[in-house]
């Protein structure tokens, strides 16, 4: 397929996934803020840190703003200058979708277009019914992701979209776990509080029920980290997403097709996949996660050079 179109498919997938995960994270954090008995800054600051927009936030706001939940949410939902905000992600998804409208199915396109039309008119719902607002974003993005798989041809365009979704998801999971793992260390020993925090993180990744099933109800830093990094049955774990991304890339560029571009990307993703699968020890979580985030970054750059025409 056209290299530029592949690039836009990839970014379409990333933006849709990013919108979904941002809405999910904001909803679970807002819920936690109600009963966490934590200083507000420790509740809200991680949201900005995970999004990677700390510097932009600091530019416009003073230190007290870290604890202002309304301000943080406004920044993460409506601020068009924030590349990770919901408006930016949804517009990014819709812009790419419109540019590759001819490869998307009508149903998937309509879901994204409706979200784009709905958002500017949803200020009232945001004000009066915050939970419902986040829910609507999540439902529509999930609908779009589901429709892509159930209404599109399962060939190259869908492979690129899904590659984007999966690599975005790896980064989101890694960054959320990293930020929280670091922050929660301060509460070691306060079991009740710690449990609440880990559950919030798991909820933010749609993983609380799955985790409880896998761990027979035991909640602790090692268990949660192992689950989010290595649980191959959990569709948001790092191991699952990296491996699925590798499989997608194998469809696009089969390992034996040496004459086709994409060999370096495939090799590097394959190395990362094996590296994660072979990890037995998940104690040095921060180092491990930093390595994952750096590798994903490098792989995306390689994809750009090899498959997206160096755009």
């Amino acid at each position: 397929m056209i290299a530029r179109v592949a690039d836009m498919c990839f970014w379409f997938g990333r933006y849709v996934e990013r919108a979904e995960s941002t809405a999910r994270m904001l909803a679970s954090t807002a819920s936690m803020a109600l009963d966490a008995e934590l200083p507000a800054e420790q509740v809200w600051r991680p949201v900005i840190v995970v999004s990677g927009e700390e510097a932009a936030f600091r530019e416009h706001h003073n230190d007290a703003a870290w604890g202002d939940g309304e301000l943080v949410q406004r920044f993460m939902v409506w601020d068009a200058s924030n590349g990770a905000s919901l408006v930016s992600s949804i517009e990014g998804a819709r812009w790419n979708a419109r540019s590759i409208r001819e490869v998307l199915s009508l149903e998937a396109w309509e879901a994204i277009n409706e979200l784009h039309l709905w958002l500017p008119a949803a200020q009232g719902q945001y004000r009066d019914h915050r939970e419902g607002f986040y829910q609507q974003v999540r439902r529509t993005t999930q609908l779009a992701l589901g429709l892509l798989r159930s209404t599109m041809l399962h060939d190259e365009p869908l492979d690129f979209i899904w590659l984007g979704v999966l690599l975005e998801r790896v980064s989101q999971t890694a960054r959320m776990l990293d930020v929280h793992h670091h922050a929660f260390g301060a509460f070691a020993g306060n079991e009740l509080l710690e449990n609440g925090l880990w559950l919030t993180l798991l909820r933010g990744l749609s993983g609380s029920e799955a985790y409880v099933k896998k761990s027979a109800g035991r909640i602790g830093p090692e268990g949660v980290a192992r689950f989010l990094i290595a649980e191959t049955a959990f569709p948001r774990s790092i191991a699952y997403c990296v491996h699925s991304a590798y499989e997608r890339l194998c469809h696009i560029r089969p390992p034996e097709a040496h004459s086709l571009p994409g060999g370096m990307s495939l090799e590097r993703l394959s190395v990362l996949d094996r590296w994660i699968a072979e990890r037995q020890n998940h104690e040095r979580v921060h180092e491990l996660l930093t390595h994952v985030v750096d590798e994903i970054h490098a792989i995306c750059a390689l994809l750009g050079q090899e498959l997206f025409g160096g755009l």
Partner: protein
Amino acid sequence: MRQSQSQIQGVVGPLFEAYEALPSTYDELFEAGAPRPPFTRVVELLDALGKDQLARAQAIAENALLQQGVTFSVYGDSRGVEKIFPFCLLPRLIAAADWAPLERGLQQRLRALGLFLDDIYGDQRILAAGIVPAEMVLGAQSYRPMLRGIKPPGGVRIHIAGVDLIRDTAGTWRVLEDNLRTPSGVSYVVENRLMSKRMFPRAFDAARVQRVDHYPTRLAETLRSVSPAADTNAVVLTPGPYNSAYFEHSFLARTMGLELVQAPDLFVERDCVFCKTTRGPKRVDVIYRRTDEAFLDPEVFRADSVLGVPGLMRAYAAGNVALANAPGNGVADDKAVYPFVHDMIKFYLDEEPILEQVPTYVCLRDADRAYVLEHLGELVVKAVDEAGGYGMLMGPQSTQAQRDEFRARIIAEPRRYIAQHRVELSSCPTWIGESGSVEPRRVDLRPYILTSRNGPWVLPGGLTRVALVKGSYVVNSSQGGGSKDTWVMRP
């Protein structure tokens, strides 16, 4: 949308209640207060829907178009604002007996225009014979001397044409303009049809309407028919998502199953065109280009074009890629050449022209110029090289100073001016949301003609453009125009 629904409450009564056609104007559906005979049953069925139903259907349809993204981009808005192309659900009907001569006339006209282009970029027999004054053609900005001697792959130049027609007070079809470069609007023909079938299934059924949804298939066949290769890779070339017709470019690529490419996706090597794919370069044989020819190739046309593909014209001249439409076609739809189309039909085909056009005075001819200078106050004078309203004198509304200025300009450069009487456009019943009633509005018609190796084919339908502003004759979408579905009845 919620607002428009509350507005329409209280709008009741049969649809065409109190409908009054305009005086001394041909109305498409009514004659002397009654439906025209071929349309009686359809008009009854539409009438029975009532105003409230129509208002509701119109609101639903507009909302559906927005949700589906059937929109055009508004130029000059950096945020990429998009709007739906205004349209009226009430269809324009064309009886089978009216369509048949129109179809034959369009085919005849396209054959003659194609032969004219072959001739102008070939031996120029028609100029040598003195049928068309050489200076009208060779002096036109749209004539491209560097294309002379180049034969297009498959021998076709006007693959896609959109011919603008009006109906005068007697109901006679007249060609107003031939669009032979990159005519747009056909996607709205197909989309409007989906909507009117959904909203008026009974009336549609009763009208026995010819289908239009096979247009993309016919277009794809047309493109393949001129391919220089056996296993054709055809693509659609768009200037990009900021272009006002981007929806249509995407629509056509999607419905034909072709790749939609932008100029940076293409490159030329050894006079062959390739596109950059995820599996390396892939040869391109046919390009349905929706980029203006001035921007196609910076090596040949505008050097500042970022929408172009360097070397594309070399590949075209070598016969390695077909371009639809062929570059250089502008010389055949030029205002200066329009007055001579009937002469072309006689010269190339030895046939009598089937379709009328608007009588035009060519100021280069002594007798015509004398008449024009005598009657400046009654005529519309147009400069041939200038588009839109520029360089135009609307005689009946002009001042003495303006007429004097044009008189001097015509005498100085007669080649640059033509003149016509003001044309009357027919009207068609149109739903007006603000008044909650049906009122007459002026319309034109743009049918689409595809020409493959086997000759021209006319899509039985077309874009009916309607001047939504009361009293207006301007049907352009940029100036308050909208569209209607066009129902061509089966014989």
